[in-house]
């Protein structure tokens, strides 16, 4: 083990040069051992060009240990008040006072230290080296940032963070075991990007690791407790104030600290999230779980949503500011690096986004998902009971959904009935694919059981309509950011029929949804219609065609619209004074109506032959016309019998936004506004 290079003698001093000493876990190069028995200046000094120790200490250069007091007894050299010096990347400059003991025959070296400067603090402890291995103990208080700097060469992760705070360390190391306890106070750290950071963390970490021999895997148990502070690992935010965290990991680490064998994780974040995982196979470079069974005993909302879910939803415009409640539990399995199955049991879960007018309440049941490779015939059935909710501020009653979920999609197994006021939307079929991707697509087919329009329109903030809305929604598909309808949407309202043809919506979930459609109305009861808008009573039937309608973000920007007396109408046709005034107002009459004076004022309503209005909207200009041309204008209302009243419009172009205001004013007041129409009594 040792090669004797030579010896020198001086008065009272013995010097021994040794080229190299090799132990199992250490080696010394360029060793010089000097002893002085001079009573005036006794010393023992050991110098070495290089001491090589196991990681993380590694090489210590220019080592010297000079003991002011020493003694040799029974083959054991003992040194007291020894000054230790050395240069090492971990300790930067190694400088401490140590007590030294060297058993010459046993080739065992041990030293104890009280104040070894390290990582912004000092350590007290010991180090012993012999043929069987090494052992060290250390305890003290260290500064987190200094410790990070000291350990940075060992890991690129540590190289990219900054931190502060302090640790109490109490550890025992050997080549076969590690037992360490760290108590952390007020720890803060952050990486350069700010995607991993913590603030004001306090807690403890205990590590217990051992191995059967050199080259054997380390059996590691780690227990973490965080009692205060907060942390952010994008996109997860962890709040430990009043919600302490405990976590335990048991694993085996082989070469390069890669996990070998089974790893178990138990994670408990107060009442927010409890998870246990049995990981059969994983890698850490890159991080990937190959095979695992994960059980989530508890996910409590809203804190669970705010901490663990919300960050994943950034970029989903419909889920910005959800207020959540309830709790969930479930399990998941991972095989071959991919999720294989997920089961999630929801208990009284609610989600509410007041800004979006969306809410679901009292959702309970089990969602079961399988990977896309699963045989469709063996898919488990998911069942949800939804206590109620709101969509676009429209109240939806209790419903039960049975569905299957697999791969990136799913489908309803049986019709889903969503009660809406006195009626319902019955979804007969619904299937979705491409969930979570840019290729989202779904198909949907439904029927409307008669829904009371009065409550529906009130909920939507529209003028209150009487009557009922019913009809069918033929196959509606969403694909490539576009909704299309495979047929005609039909509804009944105002005792007539309303159809939507060629409906297409671009980017329905985008910021600027764009809708194209043609709407046809047949045989609407004007008495019911005018009751709604309080513009004055009109009796008769009305047809309408709004062709080439284009709406952007709910606002019409183009259409070619015609509204006219139903050709087949044989009912009584009467128009009230107020309605005449309102139509004049919509078309923009600035003059006092002739109706309010003379003989006409004694008639409350008038018979008419036909009425109608056309508007072709383009570039915010409505090109207006009526049911037929009139002298310098067009007929909006063509009277019949005596006293006869005709309403004639003269304005052919109206700014659309202004016209909308006029309509709103007319609806609100039933009064005449401004413009260029004329009503004439004959």
């Amino acid at each position: 083990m040792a090669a004797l290079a030579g010896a020198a003698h001086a008065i009272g001093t013995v010097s021994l040069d040794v080229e190299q000493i090799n132990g199992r876990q250490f080696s010394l190069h360029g060793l010089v051992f000097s002893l002085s028995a001079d009573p005036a200046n006794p010393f023992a000094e050991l110098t070495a060009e290089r001491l090589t120790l196991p990681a993380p200490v590694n090489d210590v250069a220019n080592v010297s240990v000079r003991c002011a007091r020493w003694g040799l007894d029974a083959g054991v050299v003992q040194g007291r008040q020894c000054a230790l010096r050395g240069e090492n990347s971990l300790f930067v400059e190694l400088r401490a006072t140590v007590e030294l003991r060297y058993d010459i025959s046993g080739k065992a070296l041990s030293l104890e230290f009280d104040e070894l400067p390290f990582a912004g603090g000092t350590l007290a402890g010991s180090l012993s080296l012999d043929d069987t291995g090494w052992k060290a103990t250390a305890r003290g208080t260290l500064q987190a940032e200094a410790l990070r700097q000291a350990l940075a060469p060992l890991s690129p992760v540590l190289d990219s963070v900054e931190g502060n705070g302090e640790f109490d360390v109490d550890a025992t190391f050997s080549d076969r075991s590690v037992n360490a306890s760290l108590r952390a106070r007020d720890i803060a750290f952050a990486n350069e990007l700010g995607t991993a950071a913590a603030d004001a963390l306090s807690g403890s970490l205990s590590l217990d690791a051992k191995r059967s021999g050199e080259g054997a895997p380390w059996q590691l148990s780690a227990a973490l407790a965080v009692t205060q502070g907060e942390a952010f690992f994008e996109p997860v935010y962890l709040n430990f104030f009043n919600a302490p965290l405990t976590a335990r990991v048991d694993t085996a680490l082989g070469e390069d600290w890669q996990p070998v064998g089974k790893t178990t994780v138990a994670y408990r974040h107060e009442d927010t999230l409890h998870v246990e995982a049995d990981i059969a196979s994983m890698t850490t470079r890159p991080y990937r779980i190959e095979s695992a069974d994960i059980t989530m005993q508890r996910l409590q909302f809203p804190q669970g949503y705010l901490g663990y879910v919300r960050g994943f939803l950034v970029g989903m415009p419909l889920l910005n500011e959800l207020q959540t409640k309830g709790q969930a539990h479930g399990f998941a399995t991972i095989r071959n690096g991919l999720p294989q199955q997920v089961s999630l049991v929801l208990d009284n879960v609610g989600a509410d986004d007041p800004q979006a007018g969306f809410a679901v309440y009292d959702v309970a049941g089990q969602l079961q998902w399988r990977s896309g490779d699963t045989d469709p015939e063996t898919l488990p059935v998911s069942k949800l009971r939804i206590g109620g909710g709101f969509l676009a501020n429209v109240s939806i009653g209790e419903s039960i959904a049975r569905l299957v979920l697999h791969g990136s999609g799913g489908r309803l197994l049986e019709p889903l009935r969503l009660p809406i006021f006195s009626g319902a939307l019955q979804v007969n079929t619904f299937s979705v694919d491409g969930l979570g991707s840019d290729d989202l697509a779904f198909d949907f087919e439904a029927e409307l059981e008669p829904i009371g329009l009065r409550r529906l329109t009130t909920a939507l903030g529209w003028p209150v309509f009487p009557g009922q809305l019913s009809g069918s929604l033929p196959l509606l598909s969403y694909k490539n950011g576009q909704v299309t309808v495979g047929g005609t949407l039909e509804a009944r309202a105002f005792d007539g029929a309303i159809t939507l043809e060629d409906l297409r919506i671009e980017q329905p979930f985008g910021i600027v949804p764009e809708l194209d459609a043609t709407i046809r109305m047949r045989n609407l009861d004007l008495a019911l219609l005018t009751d709604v808008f309080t513009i004055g009573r009109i009796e008769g039937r009305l047809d309408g065609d709004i062709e080439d309608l284009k709406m952007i973000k709910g606002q019409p920007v183009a259409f070619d619209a015609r509204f006219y007396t139903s050709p087949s109408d044989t009912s009584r046709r009467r128009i009230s004074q107020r309605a005449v005034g309102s139509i004049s107002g919509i078309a923009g009459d600035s003059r006092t109506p002739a109706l309010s004076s003379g003989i006409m004022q004694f008639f409350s309503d008038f018979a008419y032959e036909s009425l109608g209005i056309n508007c072709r909207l383009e570039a915010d200009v409505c090109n207006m016309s009526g049911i037929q041309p009139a002298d310098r204008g067009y007929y909006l209302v063509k009277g019949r019998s005596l006293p006869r009243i005709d309403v004639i419009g003269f304005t052919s172009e109206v700014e659309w936004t202004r016209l909308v205001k006029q309509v709103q004013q007319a609806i609100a007041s039933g009064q005449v506004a401004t413009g260029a129409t004329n009503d004439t009594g004959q």
Partner: protein
Amino acid sequence: MTKAIRLLLISAIAVSACVTINVYFPEAAAEEAADRIIDEVRADDDNGFSSGLLDVTNKLRGMMASIASLAIAPAHAQKANFDASSPATRTLEASLKKRFGQLRPYYASGAIGLTADGLIDFRDRNLIPLSERNRVRQLVNDQNADWQALYAEIARINGHPEWTDSIRKVFADRWIVKAQSGWYYRDGSGNWKQK
């Protein structure tokens, strides 16, 4: 008519029928529109307001006429109107304005900054309290989506969807000109600079 003369005539007609219309992006008008929209979005922001307006008044006004590149036939200038609005632009501007108020502290702290492509981005997340980081991620994401949509919509209502990138560039430049002192912006080389 001889065959040669007929050929000559056909060629003359064919040549005279070749009309090349080059419609140039009207940058000055776009800058004015950008200034108006930026001022509207940050309407309650007094500081840094005047510098932008001063610049605008010195800009060339009016539209650049389109030029027929081969001068064979007269070109037709297509008038752009960057002050035109649509339901979409109005909604987007209102949305941007509302969100700007929430983003302002993060501009001021240097956590976020303006980018050379007319959007915003994180400059230093570590200047944002941990509990706010996901919320600011959402704000930045949504604000950028609205800006993207607005640039595309302005181009669309002017009948030139291909102008989207040019409009974006104009807005990027004007944002930087009008940025408040102390705000950060990222130049085309990817370097952050402080106004």
